[in-house]
């Protein structure tokens, strides 16, 4: 069952003169109970594409396309109705737990205000629920934690609290935007295990955004790779990671420090700077950095090639088996 189906999503923002395209013709589907990974470098449009769904882009941003969430189009719906779905049906965890909490409001207040608003829950009930969730995300002494302030917790703890906050309304979809990037490696693993466990316990769908393919391989069921505001490849995560079909995915994997890699092999970074909005190259957006580019890549937009459950936007297909 598909919970969220995004179809032909375009996002652009106004600048001094003209508009700047951030996301271009993006389509994907998130299955119920699955972890859907979105990978890509910064500026690739991965965060913008989900913020757009939740109506969280700044004023003036234009969002077109379709995003059916449990049948309703998030993009076409009135903002007031979208707000009711956000927080209640869709929970969002931000990248940096140091900045995503209001510094002057208590943890308890920030964990309960949306439950109370969406469900009209009494203060006591909301508090009880928050305590249960804090316990579930392994915050010690949850009762006392509610009366404390965000700055009294470490980054890892805060991110657990942020996840609890996103889950307190029992959403069907959790969107986690680089939830571990700002954290220590040791803390990262804990957060990922937590996400995985919550997903199983609650039949939760998760969109996990990260630039780190190592993280992806640990938890993602499906994987889509963004580059230059477009999807360059997607499919079941193990297949994509085992045998990437797009040169960009390949390059990302090569740039990954890999424990299974034989000793002495050199880490390879991707040559050249990542494409940035406003400077999308013509043709295939990846061609200036691509080892396999041919003449056509410079001028023609690559078609999307479908192979079973896999899709990729590279007609050259240098890694075909």
């Amino acid at each position, binding site marked *: 069952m598909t919970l969220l189906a995004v179809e032909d999503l375009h996002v652009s923002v106004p600048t001094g003169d003209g508009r700047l395209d951030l996301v271009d013709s993006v389509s994907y589907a998130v299955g119920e109970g699955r972890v859907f990974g979105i990978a890509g470098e910064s500026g690739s449009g991965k965060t913008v594409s989900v913020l757009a769904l939740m109506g969280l882009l700044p004023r003036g941003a234009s969002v077109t396309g379709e995003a059916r969430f449990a049948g309703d189009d998030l993009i076409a719906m009135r903002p007031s109705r979208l707000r009711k779905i956000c927080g209640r049906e869709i929970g969002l965890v931000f990248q940096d737990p140091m900045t995503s*909490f209001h510094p*002057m409001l208590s943890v308890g207040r920030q964990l309960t205000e949306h439950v109370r608003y969406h469900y009209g829950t009494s203060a006591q009930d909301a508090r009880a629920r928050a305590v249960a969730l804090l316990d579930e995300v392994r915050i010690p002494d949850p009762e006392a934690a509610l009366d404390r302030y965000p700055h009294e917790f470490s980054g890892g703890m805060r991110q657990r609290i942020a996840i609890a906050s996103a889950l307190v309304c029992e959403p069907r979809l959790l969107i986690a935007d680089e939830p571990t990037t700002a954290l220590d490696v040791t803390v990262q693993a804990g957060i990922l295990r937590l996400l995985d466990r919550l997903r199983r316990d609650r039949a939760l769908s998760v969109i996990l955004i990260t630039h780190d393919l190592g993280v992806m391989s640990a938890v993602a069921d499906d994987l889509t790779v963004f580059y230059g505001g477009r999807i360059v490849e997607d499919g079941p995560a193990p297949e994509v990671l085992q045998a990437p079909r797009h040169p960009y995915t390949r390059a990302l994997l090569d740039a990954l420090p890999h424990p299974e890699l034989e000793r002495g092999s050199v880490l390879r970074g991707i040559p050249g700077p990542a494409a940035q909005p406003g400077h999308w190259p013509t043709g295939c957006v990846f061609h200036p950095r691509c080892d396999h580019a041919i003449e056509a890549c410079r001028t023609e937009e690559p078609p999307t090639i479908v192979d079973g459950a896999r899709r990729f936007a590279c007609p050259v297909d240098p890694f075909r088996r």
Partner: protein
Amino acid sequence: MIEPGRPRSRAPWPFLRFLGRRLAALVVLALGITLIAFVLTQLVPGDPALSALGPVTSADPEAVAAYHEKWGMDKPLPVQYLTYLGNLLQGDLGISQLSHQPVLDDLRQTIPATAELAFLSMALAILVGVPLGIIAAIRQNRAADHTLRVVSLAGISMPTFWLALLALYVFFFRLNWFPGGGRLDPGVLPPDQITGMYTLDAVLQGQWSVARDALHHLVLPAIVLAAFNVSLIMRYTRSAILEVVNDDYVRAARAKGLPERSVVLRHVLRAALPSIVTVLGLVFANVLTGAVLVENIFSWPGVGQYAYQASIELDLPAIMGVSLFVAIVYITVNFVVDVLYGVIDPRLRLR
């Protein structure tokens, strides 16, 4: 209990240290002011005893000698200054050359009149200025913001004394909605002094008609005095909000699906509050500045008038008294602002 708790004082000592530093600053400042005032007294020609005692008493050489003795005027300057400080510490600010009364008594009468005016005017300024600032910020770069910007610039460009004149002309002379000055109508007896603020005292004593009359006299000068501060508070509020409105936690509040109203009022405004509170010190200074001019026009017997008369007549003990009062107000306001920071922002409570 979901509301953020009252500030729990986890560490009382840092707070005491902070208090101590503030008090030390007050003492240093007060010393500086007394020194300046003392130097001024030396610059002004003539025998202060003569002007202080008035023409009748100063004819008596013994009274003049006693005055000289008390203020150490036959001794060298540093000793004179110390004598002066000693008298000051005993609450003796000297005798006003103008009223021939102890300066302390004069201040006791004039300060409440100004306080009444200042409090009402500040309340008005905050109640109008903060909401307008919020509107300007959330409508940034749109018509409402541009309009409010022009209005606020006009507000800080308007000479207070001119605004007072226009207000008097329209609302007293033409429309006769408000009285033309003074604290009470002629023939109305002031309430017994409790705080010295007529409106409050009358209410406390249940004298409703007096309270009404006092309030009636208070409204026009308070509005005139508020005009400048409305603009100032509006501008501070706007920029304070714009500084935090794109912060992550604001977006997080939206992502939680909270209605925009509560995102702005509970999250954004709360985060902007410390910067808005900062302006209060400035607002207080403006109220005192404006009071000099507004009290002059509205015949309001407050500290502003007193300071003005004292300056014109070079009544040095009175000038000193007012200066010390102003410095104490300044330090107190800054202290209150610092404490408010701690109340607003839990991160500062531990320091």
